[in-house]
């Protein structure tokens, strides 16, 4: 039976319970979590059969240059298909991962640095962005993660930096094109300092200038000096000289190490792992301190979070978001890919919050009320019933309940499962129960 603390370890820190993992988690739930914060594994073998953003990007550039509208259309459809294959593979990867805590951390950063396939011609980039920029960096310093993210073709394209040109640059003057502030604004507002974190409109413009020329060619990052603004630039009170080739990188490093960033990022992390209406102040101070003192060493930050007593609260809970729910469900039923399970992997569409499909660069809100709206709860319950009816299980409902929820089960839920008129109704009660909706 899964005990109370193990429930927390499995769902709040991990991505769910596969019955075969119970004894390992129960032995020492906290140690189980901490043991996953050592070696980075989230990128190993991840979508290894899929082509890279570079390979796919080269084809896009070729098609665009050919101006052959049939070719472009065909490629678009091909990439859309590829994207949905990738989502399926990604879901399976998370379901089967032996390092589910790292999966959770990956999804956290993937949402923090959200990109979206609502952008036209972006299907080949979204899943590759997570694979190439996020997963390999979750155990590095925040500034490494930030730099890789900003310089990745996906982010440069998503937020229009590829066309942003310094007004005084060679190309700027020749073609009278200019700055596009989009990426710079979102770096400040969403990725680092946060709104009210101490920047002004002039700093948005300054940062935009500092990263002019950060563009994409041959499917990968390329610095184009002819687009770069050739003047000294003052950003957040510091002057970056025009001859300093590394100034874009330095500006991002400065942002990564800024106390407002420590606060903004720590708050999001603590919110993610600690239940309660308000973000617990003490927990936030602790994590912020670790962030600052370690200069953004994420491994140390995670270890500190795994040691927060607020994160191990067994009386209060957060609500699973749709991704959490789908993956936890997959683990509970030990799902395998086949024609029948295709429905399952497309279920993001009916639940909402499809991966890489947020309305804005802000990503999906990590807030219980937003996550558990009436429409979403209804869809989840319907999905739970559909799964209960259509999939086979290795254990009887009451037994499975003990394994995947265990001590945290309420009397009411236990009775409902036990008293169910048939097995599928028993599984329905279990998978649609409030306990299975939470973490």
């Amino acid at each position, binding site marked *: 039976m899964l005990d109370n603390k193990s429930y927390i370890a499995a769902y709040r820190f991990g991505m769910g319970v596969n019955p075969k993992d119970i004894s390992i988690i129960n032995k020492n739930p906290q140690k189980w979590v901490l043991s996953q914060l050592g070696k980075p594994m989230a990128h190993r073998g991840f979508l290894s059969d899929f082509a890279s953003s570079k390979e796919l990007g080269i084809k896009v550039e070729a098609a665009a240059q050919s101006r052959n509208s049939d070719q472009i259309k065909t490629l678009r459809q091909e990439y859309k298909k590829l994207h949905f294959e990738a989502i399926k593979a990604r879901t399976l990867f998370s379901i089967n991962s032996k390092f589910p805590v790292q999966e959770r951390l990956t999804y956290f950063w993937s949402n923090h640095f959200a990109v979206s396939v*609502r952008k036209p011609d972006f299907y080949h980039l979204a899943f590759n962005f997570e694979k190439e920029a996020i997963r390999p960096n979750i155990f590095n310093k925040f500034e490494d993660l930030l730099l890789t993210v900003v310089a990745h073709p996906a982010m440069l394209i998503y937020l229009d930096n590829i066309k942003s040109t310094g007004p005084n640059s060679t190309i700027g003057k020749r073609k009278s094109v200019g700055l596009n502030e989009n990426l710079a604004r979102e770096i400040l507002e969403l990725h680092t300092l946060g709104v009210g974190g101490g920047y002004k409109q002039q700093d948005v413009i300054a940062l935009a200038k500092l990263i002019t020329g950060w563009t994409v060619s041959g499917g990968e990052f390329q610095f184009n000096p002819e687009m770069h603004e050739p003047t000294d630039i003052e950003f957040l009170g510091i002057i970056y000289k025009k001859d300093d080739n590394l100034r874009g990188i330095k500006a991002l490093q400065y942002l990564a190490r800024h106390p407002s960033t420590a606060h903004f990022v720590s708050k999001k992390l603590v919110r993610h792992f600690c239940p309660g209406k308000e973000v617990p102040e003490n927990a936030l101070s602790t994590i912020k301190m670790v962030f600052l003192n370690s200069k953004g060493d994420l491994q140390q930050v995670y270890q500190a979070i795994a040691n927060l007593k607020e994160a191990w609260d067994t009386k209060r*809970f957060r609500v699973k978001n749709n991704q959490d729910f789908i993956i936890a469900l997959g683990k509970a039923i030990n799902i395998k890919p086949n024609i029948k399970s295709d429905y399952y992997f497309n279920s993001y569409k009916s639940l909402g919050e499809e991966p890489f499909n947020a309305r804005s660069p802000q990503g999906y809100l990590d807030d219980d*009320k937003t996550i558990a709206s*009436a*429409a979403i709860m209804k869809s989840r319950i319907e999905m739970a019933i559909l799964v209960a009816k259509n999939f086979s299980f290795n254990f009887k409902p009451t037994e499975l309940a003990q394994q995947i929820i265990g001590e945290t089960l309420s009397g009411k839920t236990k009775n*409902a499962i036990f008293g169910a008129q048939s097995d599928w109704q028993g599984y329905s009660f279990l998978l649609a129960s*409030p306990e299975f909706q939470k973490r």
Partner: protein
Amino acid sequence: MINRRNFLKTLAFGSFFALAPNVKLYSAGVRQDKKLFLIILRGGLDGMAMMPPFADINYQKIRGDMAIGLPGENGGALNLDGFFGLHPALIGLKTLYDDKELIMFNAVATPYRNRSHFAVQDVLENGATTPESTQDGWLNRLVSNDQKNSAVALSKETPFILSGGAKNVSSFYPHKIAPDTQNLINKIADLYRGDTLLENSIDQFMQIDKTAMKRLSKDDINSDKNSAPSGELENLLLSTAQLMKVEGGANIAVLNVGGWDTHANQGSVGGDLAKKMADLSQALAKIKIYMGKEWKNSCFLTVTEFGRTFHINGTKGTDHGTASIAMLGGGAVNGKKILGTWPGLAPTQLFEKRDLNATTDIRKIFKSVISGHLGVNQTAIENSIFPDSSTTGYFSDLFH
């Protein structure tokens, strides 16, 4: 898994919902007399693209070949009042205007000067003057204060504007309900009694589940092809109309339409933005058909969090700006007017030398609609729904 396009194709009018006995959506006493569709255009709509001030010389000069030309020219504006026009693709809206069922507002913005989407959307929805300054949205406070109203969001997530303690608020996204699971769902819902995190959401969707949607009577709709809903927004509006016409159904609906954040290649007469605006115009015009006899008691209000820069940026688009337009349409509306004061587009007239300046506080429009159309008490408006807004005043004469 049914693919979405096929699913939508198989829908006839009103076939979203299973037939069941006529049961009330909310407790008795929800008003039937006044309906409001609140449509939030998220991303920052370029008001000048939708309602070009074609007669403004600065507009023609600065927007250059991305400006909409004079009425009568090829691709020119549809004339409204000799100064403003509508983008040439917005035929549905032009018809509403000419039929005196549409009011356009120019140079409108929230009271919060900022260009971050989520900060200003927060202000749009919290009804205050700064972001993150309330725990609830203003529409939630409205239905709390005036309980004969009830509101529904046509989205999976509850938007902040509807968040808060009021019970007569729900979110609903239409899809087919399998009849044989309803009984089981009822029993599952029982497990959530007393669950502080989730009980409210469960209650809300259970309420809607008990509702029947009558198929739209053939009298209400033109059976001509042009009325059939096409596309996601029109289907959503049709479902909304159905929800609003049921006895005891919601009388206020909130819909979100995204995709207005046109930083690059926004186009002008043609192009991406023109297409989106055309789809919106067509969809809004169909509300009249979907509401049928209830159109005379209904109105829609479109708002956006901010407008866009007056100057075109380096990538043939526009960046975040300040003032934009709002549109109020409906059978209840005393239309064929353009309200608000045009501040002009000369360099000294622009906000921070880049944006159309705002001369109408968007709260004035919200307050005028809820007071004039829904009859919400003005004391409640000033004290609770839109606190600290006393300077805005009200528009008069928006409704019959």
